[in-house]
């Protein structure tokens, strides 16, 4: 494709008159309060990549304790604990609580919706920016109070100790645990700020996708990434208020002695008996009503991006585009009626257990359809085995494992046994790390050229992939076996129980793999930052992809496109035999040759 470079100097007076656009334009603005969606996207991306290391370090603390209980931790030991580097049980509780909190609220959700959602939505639908640029900037900057609150919670006695699920009564009564004091309050405030940030983003994405698509970009010509972001935004908009409300209820309970969740007559840690008539299960219902859809919030965008990467790198159209869209919609819809599967052993009405089992089994169906379609997409393609593709394949392969292990827990009787064991830990790490993070790694390599006009180093990229893949499977696959062996999660020292003693060597192996995986991420960071300055320069469309974003300059200037792009076809016309020049791609903006350009402008949305 001929690079459609700056013909736009007259229409956009934003000071980008030089012919070679400044490749560092986005990076130079990351410290500013910019309302440009691309800058915000890069801000989100870099912030979350750095926070990934915080979350990872916390996880390594957990792993250290499980492999070498009560031994002084090297490197971090001095930094970590009070008693000569030893991890105390309270500290261990704080470690896994904050690992989950950082990874979920500050890494995965913001990197998907915040970084890639922001960067890609306007570019992929042919808009010049988001519908509400100021709101967009605020959604990034509201991350910082959240980070501050979470960060501060480390320093109050004990740190938050309720697990990321913060079940009352443990999280509601100050006496219940060392960390149930101020630390828990700060934690709840942090969650609220994250919620505000996500909500501003989701309103923005929905409005932008509905209203600002370029001419010809019908709903069913949108890339699956955009569909995924759209559905995710809807999920967030409906689910988040429930979490926010629940969080405020818990805050009120803690600070103003309300009793939503605390029943009367409890004697916690020899404090005075509680008064009131709350119900702890209420929190679980409210919490999981958000947090189950949140699982899909943490997965769907990665699914969408992986679909785009697979199609491009296989040089083939998506297999079953519409079924892909419908299955994402089905996941989102069903995602609202499966929250009870987190509560099978909670003591709720057993009839609910049956209902939620059926709905949970059914949500596996759209996931299965998606897997088959991804394999179908690669089937018969000319596969390009670059870093992007490897990560995307890993996404599919790992998602299969994570999806299938979910079936065990969806079956209530089996869940009685494996509930709250390491089986569940294995399951959600396969989904959130195995699937989502590999999708994110692929996406970073795939869209990096659009952000900085250079490609990331392939060699380091592949090495990073290999180490991460090996480390990830070595860490999380044995967790299934631990779960079947009955090892409960959140135990500072499982070996206190004789029937778990023999699991120590396996845990040590897993920890070694986890350390390998953790340190492999340094490669990603180095590759990312070095490539910004020293990566191989590339044109606007290094992957020969079809999406609208590849017709904009790299990096796109303020306003993105030289002129409003017109869309003539769907985003997956790879290897189309009708392509006039015989190329194996056919960008969405390329006018069809045989017909005059003016007549068949497709119906606007």
């Amino acid at each position, binding site marked *: 494709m001929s690079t459609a470079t700056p013909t736009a100097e007259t229409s956009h007076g934003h000071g980008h008159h030089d012919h070679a656009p400044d490749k560092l334009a986005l990076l130079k603005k990351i410290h500013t309060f910019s309302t440009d969606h691309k800058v915000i996207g890069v801000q989100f991306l870099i912030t979350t990549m750095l926070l990934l290391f915080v979350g990872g370090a916390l996880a390594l603390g957990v792993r250290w304790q499980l492999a070498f209980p009560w031994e002084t931790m090297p490197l971090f030991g001095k930094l970590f604990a009070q008693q000569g580097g030893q991890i105390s049980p309270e500290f261990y509780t704080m470690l896994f609580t904050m690992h989950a909190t950082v990874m979920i609220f500050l890494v995965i959700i913001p990197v998907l919706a915040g970084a890639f959602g922001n960067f890609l939505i306007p570019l992929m639908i042919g808009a010049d920016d988001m519908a509400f640029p100021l709101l967009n900037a605020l959604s990034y900057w509201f991350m910082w109070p959240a980070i501050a609150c979470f960060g501060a919670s480390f320093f109050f006695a004990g740190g938050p100790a309720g697990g990321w699920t913060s079940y009352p009564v443990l999280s509601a009564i100050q006496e219940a645990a060392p960390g149930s004091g101020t630390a828990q309050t700060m934690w709840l405030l942090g969650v609220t700020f994250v919620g505000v940030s996500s909500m501003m983003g989701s309103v923005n994405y929905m409005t932008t996708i509905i209203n600002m698509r370029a001419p010809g970009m019908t709903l069913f010509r949108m890339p699956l990434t955009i569909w995924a972001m759209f559905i995710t935004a809807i999920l967030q908009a409906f689910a988040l208020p429930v979490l926010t409300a629940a969080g405020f209820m818990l805050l009120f309970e803690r600070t103003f002695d309300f009793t939503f969740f605390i029943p*009367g007559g409890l004697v916690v840690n020899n404090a005075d008996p509680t008064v009131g008539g709350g119900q702890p299960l209420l929190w679980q219902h409210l919490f999981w009503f958000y947090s189950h859809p949140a699982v899909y919030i943490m997965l769907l965008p990665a699914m969408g991006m992986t679909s785009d990467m697979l199609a491009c790198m296989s040089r083939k159209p998506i297999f079953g585009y519409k079924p892909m869209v419908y299955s994402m919609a089905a996941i989102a819809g069903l995602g609202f009626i499966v929250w009870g599967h987190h509560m099978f052993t909670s003591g709720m009405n057993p009839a609910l257990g049956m209902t939620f089992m059926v709905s949970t089994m059914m949500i596996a169906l759209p996931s299965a359809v998606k897997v088959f379609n991804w394999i179908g997409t690669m089937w018969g393609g000319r596969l390009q085995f670059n870093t992007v593709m490897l990560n995307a394949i890993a996404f599919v392969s790992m998602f299969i494992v994570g999806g299938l292990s979910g079936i065990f827990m969806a079956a209530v009787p089996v869940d009685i046994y494996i509930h709250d064991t390491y089986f569940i830990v294995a399951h959600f790490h396969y989904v959130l790390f195995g699937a989502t993070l590999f999708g994110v790694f692929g996406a970073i390599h795939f869209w990096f050229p659009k952000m900085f006009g250079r490609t990331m180093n392939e060699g380091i990229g592949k090495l990073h992939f*290999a180490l991460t893949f090996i480390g990830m499977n070595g860490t999380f696959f044995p967790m299934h076996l631990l779960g079947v062996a009955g090892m409960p999660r959140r135990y500072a020292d499982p070996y206190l129980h004789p029937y778990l003693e023999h699991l120590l060597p396996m845990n040590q192996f897993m920890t070694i793999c986890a350390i390998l995986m953790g340190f492999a991420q340094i490669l990603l960071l180095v590759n990312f930052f070095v490539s910004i300055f020293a990566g191989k320069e590339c044109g606007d469309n290094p992957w020969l992809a079809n999406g609208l974003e590849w017709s904009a300059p790299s990096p796109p200037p303020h306003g993105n496109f030289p002129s409003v792009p017109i869309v003539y076809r769907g985003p997956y016309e790879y290897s189309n035999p009708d392509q006039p020049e015989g190329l194996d791609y056919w960008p969405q903006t390329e006018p069809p040759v045989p017909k005059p350009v003016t007549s068949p402008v497709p119906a606007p949305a």
Partner: protein
Amino acid sequence: MVWPIAAVVLCWLAPGWNWWFPAGPSGTGAAMSPLGERIDDLFYMILIITTVTFVGTQIGLGYVLFTGARRSDQPEDAEGEKAWFSHGSHNLEVVWSIVPAAVLLFIALYQMEVWAEYRVQDAFPKQVIRTGPLAEVTARQFEWRIRYPGVDAEGNPLELKPDPQPTDLYTVNDLRLPSSQPVMIWLRSEDVQHSFFLPELRVKQDAVPGLVIPVWFEAIKSTEYSMLCAELCGWGHYKMKSRLVATPEDEWRVWLQELQVEQNYDGVSDESNDE
């Protein structure tokens, strides 16, 4: 060029298969309760279904990758095979929607009965409903307090009342119940949420503050079982180590009588007897 990479990809995928197979035998061996055995059967059924699916899809993925790698090894411009141009297949979509749907629905419906027996009170074993609870287990940070009914003059256990009675007997972290018959307990929590977990018997039930939850199980063998907490309850969560001792019913009665004697023993009266 692409071949070795594709091969390496598959080698990376291979551990995925190799590590699956040892997952079967649990470290704890067979379940020690009739219901637990049925839970294990369900587990193995799902394991078989998912293993077939897993191996099938990964082989499919591997096949697609191999053929795709071969295709992209060929030169692009010459008579090299192009990528297929296909937007999908309606028939295939229908097939791979309906087949998994049927399998999943089957799994779901097949599980109902065991769940009902475990948790729905109307479906509890008749014996359990007749005899009522034999003990009340109250979880607190970080121990299990167990309340038994006292014994009457003939040495028969009294009925366990919802509220504590003067005749009640107590132990800590030591639950003793008759073996080889379904027994029921009441589960409560005194402070935060805990979870009553008997791994060998495949029993798990959260102890929710403010609720009294009936739990029944049957230990096949007269022996000692692990009993622990499975819901985060504070810093000492891992320390709630305790045991369930299942004995034949007559031994259990004797033990209960001994417990009563021990608990009513007040030294003074004993001394006066000696004189």
